[in-house]
């Protein structure tokens, strides 16, 4: 009994490990920089983390069914290029649906390989990561792609004193939360992630579900691109480069398992804020830029480690149901 309790405690501790990490980071950064703990900076962090948050929400869907999408950074760049070069004349009411469609279509390509040819999503999206960026670079001729005034205005303006980026992220989060928790489709995603074979036996259409989550992830990456590019105003050839790392790290730090079946929207948002807080803190401290990748990888490592431990422990708890005849 004791063993079980201490294990349950350890599980809870692991669950809150990212939160403790967040608090610890805030204390360290706050102590070292007087600008860090200010309302303006906090607002800044929130605004900066919105695009990662939106993309991490999309990633959560894919991770829930045991997949991964490495191509989100390339989708970002492709969408930014398409917006700047071809959609700049359109009003936002048309261009936003258009880019969401582009993102979803890109996700559908990934999904075709994953569900149709049964190739591991890790490999498929590694390939489309290069294909997507390559294609976009071909379109942009590696030149800086400037965005229309409408897009740039979106990045600078607010509604009810809250930046549009946050409104968009909140809308995506709400839609995703409702989908995952309040619809049959959402609950079936969790079932597929827990055990795809059993899900098929339980009468769930597994392949269409797997297909759809990649589309959702692509669409979210497109929205992330819109938010990010509206804040920056232009997309350089490195726009969205390696963005998959903070996105996956955010989702996993937020408690979404790389092994499928566990996770949620709000965790991913929190993860995104945590990732952005680190980046922001390092800037505030004027840290050596060469240190950034080291710190980022450390955070990813912690996230993966916590996830692995949690899985191991939940498995043990599952196994160790000692059957006592009462």
């Amino acid at each position, binding site marked *: 009994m004791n063993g079980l309790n201490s294990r349950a405690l350890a599980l809870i501790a692991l669950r809150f490990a990212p939160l403790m990490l967040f608090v610890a980071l805030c204390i360290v950064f706050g102590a070292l920089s007087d600008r860090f703990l200010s309302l303006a900076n906090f607002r800044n962090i929130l605004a900066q983390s919105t695009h990662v948050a939106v993309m991490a929400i999309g990633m959560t869907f894919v991770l829930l069914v045991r997949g991964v999408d490495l191509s989100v950074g390339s989708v970002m760049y492709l969408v930014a290029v398409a917006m700047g070069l071809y959609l700049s004349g359109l009003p936002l009411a048309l261009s936003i649906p258009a880019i969401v469609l582009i993102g979803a279509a890109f996700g559908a390509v990934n999904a075709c390989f994953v569900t149709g040819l049964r190739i591991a999503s890790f490999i498929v999206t590694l390939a489309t990561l290069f294909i997507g960026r390559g294609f976009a670079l071909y379109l942009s001729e590696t030149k800086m792609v400037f965005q229309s005034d409408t897009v740039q205005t979106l990045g600078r303006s607010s509604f009810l004193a809250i930046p549009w980026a946050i409104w968009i992220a909140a809308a995506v989060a709400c839609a995703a939360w409702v989908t995952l928790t*309040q619809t049959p489709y959402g609950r079936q995603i969790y079932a597929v992630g*827990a055990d795809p074979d059993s899900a098929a036996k339980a009468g769930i259409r597994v392949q269409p579900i797997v297909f759809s989550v990649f589309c959702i992830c692509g669409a979210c990456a497109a929205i992330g691109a819109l938010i990010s590019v509206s804040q920056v105003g232009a997309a350089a050839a490195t726009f969205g480069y390696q963005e998959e790392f903070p996105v996956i790290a955010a989702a996993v730090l937020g408690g979404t398992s790389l092994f499928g079946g*566990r996770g949620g929207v709000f965790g991913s948002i929190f993860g995104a804020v945590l990732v952005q807080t680190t980046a922001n803190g390092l800037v505030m401290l004027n840290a050596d830029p060469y240190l950034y990748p080291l710190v980022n990888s450390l955070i990813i490592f912690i996230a993966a480690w916590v996830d692995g431990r949690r899985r191991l422990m939940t498995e043990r708890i599952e196994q160790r149901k000692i059957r006592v005849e009462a």
Partner: protein
Amino acid sequence: MSDLLLKVAGLNKSFFGVQVLRDVGLELRRGTVLGLVGENGSGKSTTMNILGGVLTKDSGRVELAGEEVQPASSRDALALGIAFIHQELSLFPNLSVEENIFLDHFPKRGAGIPFIDRRRLRDQASKALELVDLKVSPTTPVMRLPQGERQLIEIAKALTRQARLIIFDEPTTSLTARETERLFEIIGRLRAQGISVIYISHILQDVMRLSDDIAVLRDGEVVGAGRREDFTVERLVTLMVGRSIDRLFPEREPSQGPGGAALSVRGLSQPGVVRDVSFELRRGEVLGVSGLMGSGRSELARILFGLDPYSEGEVRVAGERLPPLKPRLAMDRGVAFLTEDRRGEGLMMEASIADNIVLPSLVERSRGFIRWLDPAGLDQAARDMAERVRVNARAIDTAAARTLSGGNQQKVVIAKWLLRAPSIFILDEPTRGIDVGAKYEVYKIINTMVAGGAAILFISSEIEELIGMADRIMVMGRGEIRGFFERASFDRETLMSAALWQ
């Protein structure tokens, strides 16, 4: 409407040119239980998978309530009212009870509205749980429920789909006696409600007790069918194996006065698991371990193999006192362990039979300082061993372990340990879920090992099996040893009461 719910006629099915079902015919009346028995690989699962929409038939006719049906998926079968409760349950531990029950037909907030109606979900789930007498909250995650209750959830799920036919495939393998009793009671209730049941089990006593009709399959053919009254357990066994096994256990030369102690355990304790366990296992001896689930027998085995820790006591192998055990150390001292969970822990399901067999011997059988692998030698060793335990497979170097029947899988697990020529072999439920014929072969392998001087710790929940195989039986209960019994004083009643005695 006729009394007949299901009529299967002339069913044929081949895999890769091997005919696994030959002209199978079955009939099932409304509100009755059909017991289906047969050895592993006799075609029971194939037949049921066709009914449940997992496989498609080559030819033949399946009629449900007089209409020909051809389910193409589990989903189709469910829509027809055929629910298939697999041996490994299709439940999702990360979802709640209610979500599991209604996973593919959630009540919605209205036509065309894609949202789950949580209140109706809870109400309907509560009603379904009442039908199977399960007193848990519908919002409990399935992760927290024991195996027996999970089975009831599967039944509740079938009931919410208005199942007319429920197929149970080996439902009791992971249930305690109490849970089994409860399951039988519910099957009786289903029957009273006019639901038909197909019950597949290797435990023939259960089949005799539950069924109205019985059908026996052998090598893909129905070799016997009729009312329960027409059968006896002995006749079922004869039909299943095609020859009369007058002895369920092979003859063994009584141990030529067992040798010295191979394994001696003194005062072994681990809080909450085992307490003050002392015994001696001699060379050339089969020491049976009996006890109810949760008596600590499997836990003891795990400790002896170094999988779990112990806080007090000593373990000696061949007289040498061992430091705290680790599996590697135990293996180096000649200990082998056959786990009770062969799917989860004993086999690499996707790897070939040969790869599975040589796995624990790779290091010992490699050559030179760099430990080069010796593919030809390994291959030969795997072949010899597969032949020795008589694994029934077409190609041991290419066929995946997953493709084997349960009995053959178990032989592969035994083979992989035998290759290390263990001097002490701990067998935890070596014959669980395998058929009579395969059991007999496992017993023969045990006898050969013992004749070669190995010591066997044989853990089993089937008392008959221990009585038939063991030289001595050690009874455990609540983590303690309740007593030792010599072969001369083996007696079902005495052993049972020793296990039950508080």
